[in-house]
Each structure stands twice: as structure tokens, then as C-alpha cells.
């Protein structure tokens, strides 16, 4: 939805270098991923109007929030942003409900308490309304912060490392809840993280940030199938990501059958219902390339395709081969020796061999 799109363009040489352009449409989740100190939080603060870089253009829908060229600057309290801060930044002297009510200034006074109760119920905290932040667990604080951010009926939701301070189990649940919210809210959502699992689980789009500069930006599946991102390769390892549908379950074989834009995959059975969309990640290191379909292996997945790109980074021994399998692009990391022996070049027909246990299945309710 272009009319609710967030578009951001930032330029600054110092003190925090910035060189970033991106847009994020309603219903999309843009993850800004990069090492700490790369300027991720500064980008969020700029969108909220809490930081003024030398050159900034921030537009949300048809409203201009910042335009240094046109000398437009809306102060933070005039921007409809929901901001979930890294350490939540709850008001310690107010109860959970009080925190949420603080962000309900646009509503009539008489409605605020009921509305705060609704919002806290929405984030699964119906019974902790009168507790102060100190009396809440990390996950509960996170939920209050989320309720407070939503209270303003924001045009943009900004999340700064939202799961950094909670343990693993809580993190999974919160990720699912935010994913659920994303679909009901229908506003642009920008997520800053240095944990790639957050990206895989939540993002529809990805911006890779290195020292304030956008290294790459685009839809997650496209970006994840690019063979030429050495920085990403170093940080998390390359691996293609795409969505697939659970077509059938084979409980007797302990497998699920997934259909995707390039064929069928067999993966170990998981608690997923038939018909649901799942996200699949196949690490490039786990893919074997074969000139012909082999027989007599324990293997379940041999996908035919053609090589669409071969990328060698200077100083790195292994080569990244990108292979078109239907409309999906798979990545495989192989040695230079393998490239020569199989005479791999663009257009070479190959089979990609993938062990079913190498497939990362990320469940997301559709």
C-alpha cells in the first residue's frame, strides 16, 4: 500500500556516518541487520524525530516528518510513531496501565482506562495492569512497551532489539505475537536487530547495514539468494530463504512434504498443520551439487536446476554457486576444485542435493 508507505533517506558524513535509503510498505517488516555500532538505532531515532542528521527525508504516508532540504521537521510528539525501546524505557513511577494511558492523550479522558485495558489484553497481560515495571518480568515489560507503542495508533511501528533482554522461550512467543500483530495492524514495521534469527522469523524485507551504509536492501528471499554478499557470509553464513506450503504429512516416515516455487522438498516432521505456509532456510554449506541424479543415497531431496551465477570472493577459497530451481534461487558453497571438476558455469544443468535434516523450517502462521 503505497499511501501508507514509510520512506527514509539519510545522509551524514559525521559524527555518526549514515548513507541509507529505503521504503517500507504497510504490512511489511523491514529488518535492519548489522553489527553493533553500525548506526541501526540512529536510523530508528531519526524516523521518530529524536535525532537530526545533516540530511534527512522521512515521509510516512502523505505526511512529511523530516525534510532538511525543505526545512521541515516535526517534533517527536507530533509524529505518530510507536517505538519499542531496547531496554523498554517504561516509566518506573507508573503502573503498566499508567504507562499505556500516557500514550493515549489523543483519546477522550473517559475512554483511556478501558482502552489501556484492551491493549494490555491484546499483548496477553490482562492481569498485570496495576503492577509497576519493577514487579514485571522481562517478557512482561516487553509486552507493556509494545502495548504503549500501539496505544498511539501509530502510522509506523519501530522495534529496537525487541528480544535482546528476554530468554529464548519467551523470545519465540513474542516473535510469534509480533508476527501476528503485523498482519492485523497493516502499517510499516521497522525492526532493528543483530540477531539473524529475528530476521529469518519476522522480516519480509532486509536492509544490511555496515558502518552506517546500506550494503544491500530488498525483499528477504531475493537478498538471501544473492551470492555476492561477503559481509553477510561472514556474519551468519549464506543460505537461501523462501516460503513453502505444507502439502502433506508422512507421519509413518517422520517427514513433511513441502511444495514451493521450484518443486517439492521433504523435511523432518514438525508440529505444522497441512496447508500452512512455512519459511525454509537452506544453508549454502549444506547443499551438494551433482552433475546427475545420484542413486543409493539416504538422501530425500535432489532438485534439478541450472546455474544462474557463480561468485568467488577474492581471498576466500570456496565459491558460491547460485542455482535456479523453478523460481527459487538456491545457494551452494563449494570448493574451487569442485567447480573445475564439474565444469560449473552459468547455464550448467545440475542437481542440488539437500539432506532433509539440513533444512531449517521456520513456522509462521499464514
Amino acid at each position: 500500500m503505497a499511501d501508507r508507505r514509510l520512506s527514509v533517506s539519510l545522509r551524514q558524513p559525521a559524527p555518526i556516518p549514515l548513507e541509507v535509503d529505503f521504503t517500507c510498505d504497510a504490512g511489511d517488516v523491514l529488518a535492519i541487520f548489522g553489527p553493533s555500532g553500525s548506526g541501526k538505532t540512529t536510523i530508528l531515532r531519526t524516523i521518530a524525530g529524536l535525532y537530526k542528521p545533516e540530511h534527512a527525508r522521512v515521509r510516512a504516508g502523505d505526511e512529511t516528518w523530516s525534510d532538511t532540504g525543505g526545512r521541515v521537521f516535526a517534533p517527536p510528539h507530533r509524529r505518530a510513531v510507536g517505538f519499542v525501546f531496547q531496554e523498554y524505557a517504561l516509566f518506573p513511577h507508573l503502573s503498566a496501565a499508567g504507562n499505556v494511558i500516557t500514550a493515549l492523550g489523543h483519546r477522550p479522558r473517559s475512554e483511556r482506562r478501558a482502552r489501556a485495558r484492551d491493549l494490555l489484553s491484546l499483548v496477553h497481560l490482562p492481569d498485570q495492569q496495576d503492577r509497576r515495571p519493577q514487579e514485571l518480568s522481562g517478557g512482561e515489560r516487553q509486552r507493556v512497551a509494545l502495548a504503549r507503542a500501539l496505544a498511539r495508533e501509530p502510522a509506523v511501528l519501530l522495534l529496537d532489539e525487541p528480544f535482546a533482554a528476554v530468554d529464548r522461550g519467551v523470545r519465540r512467543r513474542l516473535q510469534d505475537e509480533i508476527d501476528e500483530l503485523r498482519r492485523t495492524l497493516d502499517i510499516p514495521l521497522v525492526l532493528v536487530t543483530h540477531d539473524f534469527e529475528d530476521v529469518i522469523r519476522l522480516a519480509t524485507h532486509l536492509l544490511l547495514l555496515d558502518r552506517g551504509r546500506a550494503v544491500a536492501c530488498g525483499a528477504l528471499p531475493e537478498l538471501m539468494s544473492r551470492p555476492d554478499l561477503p559481509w553477510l557470509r561472514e556474519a551468519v553464513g549464506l543460505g537461501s530463504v523462501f516460503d513453502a506450503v505444507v502439502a502433506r504429512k508422512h507421519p509413518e516416515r517422520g517427514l513433511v512434504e513441502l511444495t514451493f516455487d521450484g518443486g517439492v522438498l521433504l523435511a523432518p516432521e514438525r508440529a505444522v498443520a497441512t496447508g500452512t505456509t512455512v519459511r525454509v532456510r537452506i544453508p549454502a554449506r549444506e547443499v551438494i551439487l551433482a552433475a546427475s541424479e545420484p542413486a543409493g543415497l539416504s538422501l530425500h531431496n535432489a532438485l534439478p536446476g541450472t546455474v544462474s551465477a557463480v561468485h568467488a570472493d577474492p581471498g576466500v577459497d570456496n565459491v558460491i554457486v547460485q542455482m535456479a530451481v523453478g523460481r527459487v534461487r538456491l545457494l551452494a558453497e563449494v570448493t574451487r576444485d569442485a567447480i573445475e571438476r564439474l565444469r560449473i558455469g552459468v547455464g550448467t544443468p545440475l542437481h542440488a542435493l539437500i539432506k532433509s535434516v539440513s533444512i531449517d523450517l521456520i513456522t509462521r502462521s499464514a
Partner: protein
Amino acid sequence: MDWDALRVSLWLGAGTIALLLPWGIWFGRLLAVREFRGKLLVEALVTVPLVLPPTVLGFYLLVSFGVRSPLGQAFQAVAGQPLPFSFEGLLLASAIANIPFVVQPIQRGFEAIPLDVRDAAACCGLTPWQRFVRIEAPLAWPGILTAAILTFAHTLGEFGVVLMVGGNLPGETRTLSVAIYDRMQAFDDRSAGVMAAALLAIAVATLMATTTLSRRVSRRRG
């Protein structure tokens, strides 16, 4: 017991708080949240009354209050009486002498509020004034309370500045601490002892009030 002196002392303490606290909150917060060139110098200047001998401070104040100074002339023109050796002059001098006791605790109080919390208040749609009233002032409250108590206690005990600027006019500028000195000069040990005990009692009561209030604040915070 010199009841007039007690009255002057209490009025001076309360008046100094009333005069100084609003400015102290404004200025202490400014020092806490803003970075500007020359901030170190400003912070040093704020602290000066703390390290100067009271007589030195009193001397400079007396000179700047005098009829030959612009301030002294202005006051004379408006009030029809000179500023030195009046309660008003004493109040102004007391306010200046207490600047560090007010500004520093308030500055620390506002500095203790994390930047994210202030930012979150802005992102909740609160205007700068609403942020101050609903978020910042309640959180900086212990610092503001400390500033008020310190000012009151320090004003009751101030001697050098009072004597230099106010002199020793009964009912006008003679405070309890000056009255004690005055009685001792006249070998009236009994009166001096009663008044000293009164000051001691006020000091203890003040500290007890502070402790109770700050406990209540920290309990409220959980």
C-alpha cells in the same frame, strides 16, 4: 529566646526555597539534558558559592547591592529603601549563596533519568511541558526534595553572609544564628543555649522529614 530571630530565620529559609527552587529546577534540568560550549565553566561558577568563604561572598554581594551599583540603585528607585541591611537584600543574598545547594542535587536528579525514558515520553505524544510534569519531575523528585531541604538547613545555619549583607537588625535581618552570636557577646549563655537547642531541634526534625519522605518515594517506586 529571641522569637523575632526565629521568625526571621524561618521566613528566610522558606523565602529562599520559594525564590530559588523554580529557577533551580529550570537550570538544573538544563545542565542535565543539554550539552553546550562552556558548560564546564557554568558548572564551576554554580559551585563557587560553595567554596568561597562566606565573608568573601558577603563582601561581593554587599558591594553589588550598594547604592552605587546598578542593582542597588534600581532597588532603591522601586522600593524607596536601600537593598543592604534589609530583609529583601538578605533574601537575595541567601538565594545566591544557596545556588549550588539547589542546582547540583536537581541536576543529578534529572541526570538519573535514562535518555530512553525521556525519548519514550516524547514518542508517547507528550508535549515538552507534559513530559516535564508527568514524567521528568516525578522521577527527579528525590533530587528536588534534597535541594529544598539542603537550602532550608543551610539558610538556617548561614552566618557570614547574613552578617555581612544583613547586619544585625532585630526583626528585620537578625537570624537565629546571628542572635546566638549576639547573646554570647553579651555573656548571656542561657539565651544562647536555648536558641542553639532550638536550631538543633529544627535540624533534626528536618532530617527526619527528609528520610520519611524519601522512604515513601522509594516505596512508591517499589
